[in-house]
């Protein structure tokens, strides 16, 4: 299936940080990101590495697994968002129960995708998250008007 690139030709590509302890899962997600016209800014295999990679690469979007060694994804989200409140993080995990999703969203994740990832749905979620990120927040809009 072909996807319309996330950005048009004259715009820079959207840069992704892919975080998953499975090399295989990372490869698969990276392949999808490239099919969407995105660029891989970095990869990490656990939450601790994700925090460090985020600082180094400052990606546009982070695709974050939950169950990982050293530090789980939800805790990594909390750390990243603490230092970078505008970080755009999408959880990508096979464990998709309510408590987990809520906890991730409360810590600052923007969306949740359950594995196995369906490329069409994944693409739409990324587009949605990007459009949300591009839209001015109610506070920012209010500030602009005043």
């Amino acid at each position, binding site marked *: 299936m072909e996807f319309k690139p996330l950005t048009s030709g004259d715009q820079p590509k959207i840069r992704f940080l892919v975080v998953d302890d499975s090399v*295989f899962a990372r490869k698969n997600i990276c392949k999808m990101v490239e099919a969407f016209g995105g660029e891989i800014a970095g990869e990490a295999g656990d939450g601790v590495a994700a925090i460090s990679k985020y600082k180094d690469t400052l990606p546009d979007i982070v695709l974050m697994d939950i*169950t990982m060694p050293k530090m789980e994804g939800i805790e990594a989200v909390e750390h990243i968002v603490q230092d970078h409140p505008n970080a755009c993080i999408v959880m990508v995990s096979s*464990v998709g129960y309510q408590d987990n999703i809520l906890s991730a969203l409360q810590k600052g994740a923007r969306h949740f995708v359950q594995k196995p990832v369906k490329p069409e749905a994944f693409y739409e979620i990324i587009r949605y998250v990007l459009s949300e990120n591009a839209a001015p927040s109610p506070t920012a809009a209010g500030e602009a008007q005043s």
Partner: protein
Amino acid sequence: MNMELIQPFINSLDAVISEIMRCSARIADVTMQEGNYQRTGVAALVTLSGDIQGRIILDMDTAAASQAASDLAGISGEPSEETAREIICELTNMVIGNSVTQLNDRGFKFKVHPPELFLIDVGPRGTLDSETVLLRFELPKGAVYLNIAVHDNSHELVGSPA
């Protein structure tokens, strides 16, 4: 064996195989196991702790692993040992993750530990309080085995001292 605990694993395996490998997984055999688990091909083990306690082993024979490698990563022929291991861990992760989601939404609270490769030929037997069920699923090419040894721990946890 409490089927309420087993059914989500069966449903998830079927759903994940169907989504990833575009085929159905037909249950060919169900047996209760008393002895140690004998690995068939490439296998991964996941342990659960909390309201549901125990472990699950997902085991794929060579033909099924080759098909999964082809469907998941476009690899033709028999995958390398390393690729086969990565595939089994990721498939296990998806099957268990999806089952856990169903069980958690039914009120069971427990932790899933990341999948570990199951490298020894003969594995652990189920404990006295957790019977072991072995399910064999047939795919168009090869077979997948799900070895489940779990028990409902929620009543014991409620009754246990803080």
